[in-house]
């Protein structure tokens, strides 16, 4: 194949410039600013700014509610990943089998994906309101459910609110993954093995691994960062600070508490955590996946 040759040495920069500019303004600049905030002590208006070393980090590490938020975020992202992944997969496998009205099922199952997290939170609010919530009263009759008193109940509340919409995302990707599996492979396996379930776990599921891996990363990122709107419209972190995610805590301290130093330090900690999770996933999980 013939290589395309450009005469000018600069035209490539010209074409790259818009993209680079966007990255610079919306990505690198805020990151640099966050680092600056994390290592300085300043008042809300940006005055009295002075280098603080690791003071802001020491400050958050001496805060018990930071560890509560850390614990909750880990539990929350694991549970959400598990629930949304497994239900999404189940629905996708079933929808893939449907012959009549396939598109109706698909469309209906994809719909919730289009709803903003904050709106999901407001809807969950109706279900879990003590005054008129259907689920609140159902659970309350079963075991005395009360999310603003009991930590476990609060978990249930935010997990249901957080999972619902993300199931749709998992559903779409699993369905696409299932449809990408070659018919010949499936047909060949039918000849070799009669059991539906066994065929699924030995042939279909391994072939879905790239999708699964992708979804695990997407789900964890979702639970980490995108559930902000859900927490803000449901429990606001109650009871105590038990249902605050790390992002939500950084928001409360930075925007409501106007303490940019602490919020900056928390953002950097979050960056480090996500970095570690990603490295872990790529090193230890990805090795076990076969791409075609």
């Amino acid at each position: 194949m013939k290589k395309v040759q450009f005469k000018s040495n600069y035209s490539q920069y010209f074409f790259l410039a818009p993209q680079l500019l966007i990255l610079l303004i919306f990505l690198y600049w805020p990151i640099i600013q966050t680092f600056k905030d994390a290592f300085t002590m300043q008042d809300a208006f940006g005055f009295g700014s002075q280098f603080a070393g690791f003071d802001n980090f020491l400050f958050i590490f001496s805060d018990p509610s930071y560890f509560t938020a850390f614990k909750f975020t880990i539990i929350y992202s694991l549970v959400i990943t598990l629930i949304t992944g497994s239900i999404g997969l189940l629905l996708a496998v079933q929808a893939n089998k449907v012959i009549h009205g396939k598109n109706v099922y698909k469309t209906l199952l994809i719909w919730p994906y289009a709803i903003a997290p904050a709106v999901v939170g407001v809807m969950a609010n109706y279900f879990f309101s003590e005054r008129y919530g259907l689920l609140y009263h159902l659970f309350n009759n079963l075991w005395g459910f009360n999310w603003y008193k009991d930590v476990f109940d609060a978990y249930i509340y935010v997990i249901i609110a957080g999972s619902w919409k993300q199931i749709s995302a998992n559903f779409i990707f699993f369905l696409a993954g299932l449809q990408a599996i070659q018919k010949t492979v499936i047909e060949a396996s039918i000849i070799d093995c009669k059991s539906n379930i066994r065929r699924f776990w030995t042939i279909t599921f391994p072939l879905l691994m790239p999708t699964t891996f992708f979804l695990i990363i997407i789900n964890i990122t979702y639970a980490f960062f995108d559930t902000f709107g859900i927490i803000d419209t449901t429990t606001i972190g109650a009871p105590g600070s038990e249902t605050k995610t790390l992002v939500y805590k950084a928001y409360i301290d930075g925007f409501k508490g106007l303490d940019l130093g602490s919020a900056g330090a928390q953002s950097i900690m979050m960056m480090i955590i996500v970095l570690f999770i990603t490295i872990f996933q790529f090193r230890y999980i990805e090795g076990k996946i076969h791409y075609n």
Partner: protein
Amino acid sequence: MKKLISIFVLLVSFAFTSNSYSKTEIHWWYGNSGFLGDVIIEIANRFNDSQDEYMVIPTGKGSYEDNMAATIAAFRAGDQPHYSQVYDAGAAIMVAQVKNGVVIGFEEMAEKYGIDVDADNYIPGIKNFYADGDGKMIGVPFNSSTCLMYANMDILNEVGIEEVPKTYEEFEGMAQKILDAGYIPLLQSHSPWIWTENFFSRHNLLMTDGNNGYDDVPTRTLFADTEAFVYHWTKVKEWYEKGYYGYKGRAWGDNQAPFTNGEAAFWFGSAASFGGMKGVLPNFTTNPIPYWDSVTGGKEYPTFIGGAANWILNGHTEEEYKGLAKFIEFMGSPEMDLYYHNMTGYAAVTKGGIELAEKINFYRASPYHKAVGEQLGLEGSTIPGGYRAGNWPQIREVIYENVEPMLNGDITVEKALSNMDKGAAKLLKQFAKTL
């Protein structure tokens, strides 16, 4: 040629029309929504109609916290409004910003641009809350409320209680009766504001060291060290367990809703809450918040001012400040003050407004409005009329975080209060470093 003339005529007429519409714009940002936001827009409209040199443009930014964050972000970007509404918990931050040239104090503004409203025309308690250490008023008092006790008189009549309780002892005595009749005796909507900050003011007790921050930058709160405060929360917890006090989570509205629906006998909320209740709940009264007779020995003390003030921000032209001065004058007039008091339930903030109210027998026509002025106007306090403690929005968060596990019995009252002290001390220390 004809074309040219018509273009010329058009241009000239444009020049004139734009001239007659080029009023000086003054931006006012606020943190109220719903009905209270509508009243703010109405005030601006009235001012705009009253003269044709200036135009006040009000912009709602969401909640108090949202508006404060938006104002700060705008200032840092060099795009701040002229006038912004900042709430009580942010007062310490705003007063501290005068020296950085962010905020222009009211008195400096009045001197420079001749505002015909003297700082002394504002009610002393309210004036002092928004004043600096030398007593100079910085913020311009606007929506000043305090916490009040709302009572559902139908429930009280049904149970056979004739008078609303003045003290917590009296409340305790009647709570069982109310509970037996199937009602929630007591609800309240804001643990940090009503049962922490205003517990201290109502009982004439200091909340932080450094004389509530008026003498020195405070380093710690006195929650666990104040015997009466420990006693109060021990009682609250006991009431909660007995069902005398019903906790409905952190949201203001969730705690108010059962009262508004006639399921609770008493509710502690803001003086400005009555607007939403009038016409919904048939027979209710507004009363001063109770106090512990055993703590004050029968004496009553005023509570802190709640709500917000408007703050003048630096960085605009002289012409615009002249307009703002006119607007401040307009809002400080007795008529506007009384209008706002009447519409919202917030206290009248000027002496002129109160005099006018007396003159037209306003309180006989609307007794709801009386309690707020009475409670704020009480005398005999030896503590300052407010607190100057930085990072207070976060300290409120710390209070919330510890109230819930305390009520649930996960931690003891003493432990919860000392947790609050510890959390607050750290935040106060953090704030002191930025001064």
